[in-house]
């Protein structure tokens, strides 16, 4: 991990609708992503994870805050040259593989589309080789190239999306639930691939996932989001070994364990947002509780949660 963030998000807000129906899905989120880092975003369904990814991709406009790529502001309007660069350098694997693949195109075209747009090959032979390599890397057979998306299983479609994004050779990959539909072994293969690209090409990942055992294994740092706000951010192992925020604790307690005996005796921790009892003048703030370990808390909570070591 290098010292300069490749992406910095500061005070990001995203709103849907307007007037009385306006709804703020992302309510002031800040984090940095470093070169060859994997930062994971975990949290409740509907908490704003995908929305953050889409705002970075400039699919949704930011209502407030800034998004900087290599120090340059990219939220809002940018020049045509910059636009083109961003469209190659920042890729997103979309959450729903069913909806995100062009149903009428064959896999060969879907995987090559970006290669065509950015002329990333010198001749037809090289293009075909790139497609074949991209498919094999995610455990798909080259013979799949001539088929249509609906002719594949859920996990196969998801991997087509991964192959397509990686073929573009991006610098930042926003991976939104990229491996949720894969079996454990192919999941392991894709994780190994992502880690290898991180080592070899210095790729950075914003990794969004519900499977916390995968998140624990793959992440350098983890950010926990609840109702559009980050509630905790810490190095991966630290977060699992010393969760501070009660929402993080509830989340970790609900992770299903692949062991029938353990599962039988398991108890869930429940998070009740009312339990904070925040009052006026006592609002929680984003604080560094321990070195590199941030949490959303007020003074009293910070003392309580970090007490006793």
């Amino acid at each position, binding site marked *: 991990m290098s010292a300069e963030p490749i992406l910095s998000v500061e005070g990001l807000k995203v709103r849907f609708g307007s007037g009385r129906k306006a709804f703020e899905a992302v309510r002031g989120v800040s984090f940095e992503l470093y070169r060859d880092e994997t930062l994971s975003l975990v949290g409740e369904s509907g908490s704003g994870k995908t929305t953050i990814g889409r705002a970075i991709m400039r699919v949704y406009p930011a209502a407030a805050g800034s998004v900087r790529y290599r120090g340059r502001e990219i939220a809002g309007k940018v020049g045509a040259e910059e636009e083109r660069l961003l469209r190659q350098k920042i890729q997103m694997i979309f959450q729903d593989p069913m909806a995100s693949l062009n149903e009428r195109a064959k896999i060969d075209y879907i995987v090559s589309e970006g290669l065509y747009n950015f002329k990333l090959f010198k001749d037809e032979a090289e293009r075909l080789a790139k497609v074949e390599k991209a498919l094999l890397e995610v455990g798909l057979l080259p013979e799949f190239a001539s088929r249509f998306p609906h002719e594949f299983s859920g996990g196969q479609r998801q991997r087509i999306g991964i192959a397509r994004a990686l073929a573009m050779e991006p610098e930042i990959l926003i991976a939104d639930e990229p491996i949720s539909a894969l079996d454990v072994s192919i999941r392991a293969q894709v994780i*190994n691939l992502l880690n290898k690209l991180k080592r070899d090409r210095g790729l950075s990942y914003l990794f969004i996932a519900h499977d*916390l*055992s995968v998140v624990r*294994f793959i992440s350098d740092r983890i950010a926990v989001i609840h109702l559009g706000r980050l509630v905790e951010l810490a190095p991966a192992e630290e977060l699992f070994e010393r969760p501070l925020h009660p929402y993080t604790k509830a989340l*970790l307690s609900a*992770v*299903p364990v692949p062991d*029938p005996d353990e*599962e039988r005796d398991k108890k869930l921790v429940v998070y009740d947002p009312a339990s904070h009892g925040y009052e006026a003048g006592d609002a929680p703030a984003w604080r560094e509780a321990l070195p590199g370990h941030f949490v959303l808390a007020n003074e009293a909570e910070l003392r309580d949660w970090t007490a006793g070591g």
Partner: protein
Amino acid sequence: MTRIKNDTAAAGPAAPALEAAPRAPGELLLSAQDLVIGFTLRGRKLTAVRRASLELRAGETLAVVGESGSGKSVLAKSLLGMLDRNGRAESGRIMYRGVDLAAFTGEKEWLKVRGSRIAMVFQDPMTALNPLKTVGEQIREAAALHRGLDKAASRALALDMLKRVGIGEPERRYGQYPHEFSGGMLQRAVIAAAIACGPEILICDEPTTALDVTIQAQILDLIKGLQRDLGMSVLFITHDLGVVAKMADRIAVMYAGQVVEEGLSRELFYDPRHPYTWALLASLPQLGVKGEELFAIKGTPPSLFKEIKGDAFAPRNPMALKVDFEHEPPFFDLSPTHRAKTWLLDPRAPAMEAPDTVKRLKSRIADAGRAAGVAGAGSPERPGSGVKKEAKR
């Protein structure tokens, strides 16, 4: 083979066999026998399910796990006559209450079974609901259609179902549209619609992969509770082995269109015997060492366009025997409930054991859980609190 005649009206009385009395727990309810399912693709034949057999017993939860593309969803859809148009059951039988569902020739026959007897919950709740109709009306219509209830009765039932799946203020929610529900609530609504028809069998195809773990836990508890209350059998397809450990009484492992190992949950987790099952368990991230490669099965699954010779897993199995490349292995029984389809269990095969990581699965996972302070004994807990409050936007 018993067949329901084509000319029986959909809403008319069902064939006698389908009307039989409820089964005792543990009794065989549904079985796929040597089922072969093929797809036609621009003139070529793809065989997705290759002589697979599966049994579902009354009151049990059977989890189906396995390779992506191994035919889990196709097999499940064939049990409800919901295969894509280019696919069909080519041979084999699907026996349910003495009727061979695989011999059905038209929608009319399937309508007697689908929904009312065997219902399915898909991974994506959005595709299961009509965005232009209120959630409550959709549940009501399903109940009215399958149970022959009038408007008032089906409405009362729909409200009761919404309540049962833990949706607060059911009266208000009844009149809302799908987009006004959060993902977790939608998934519960889909389950409500499925059980409103009073099915004997509920098939769940990855119903919780899109949900966060707290909502997932709620939905899993919900399915368990409904199963207990209503005496349903559940066929549960998932890649999450943690979910399997939580839900399954029995587990079937699929590879390349076949079931290759099946047994009680504890038998599969603590004493797996098929090399593919070993490889699957060994790939768990919980067994990995951070910064190192995770174990993953080398190579790719076989092309389903071609005839598969011998054991389909052999080319990817470092322990494969010569015979694996020539002859398909039969099932070997390990206990009355546990069997595996691998030549390794043949008395003539050299002794071969599960990899160490797999044998240590139990202790490794317990350790990891304790370090995280989350699993099993000694975890922080609040007694009596199974379910979190309903997810709000």
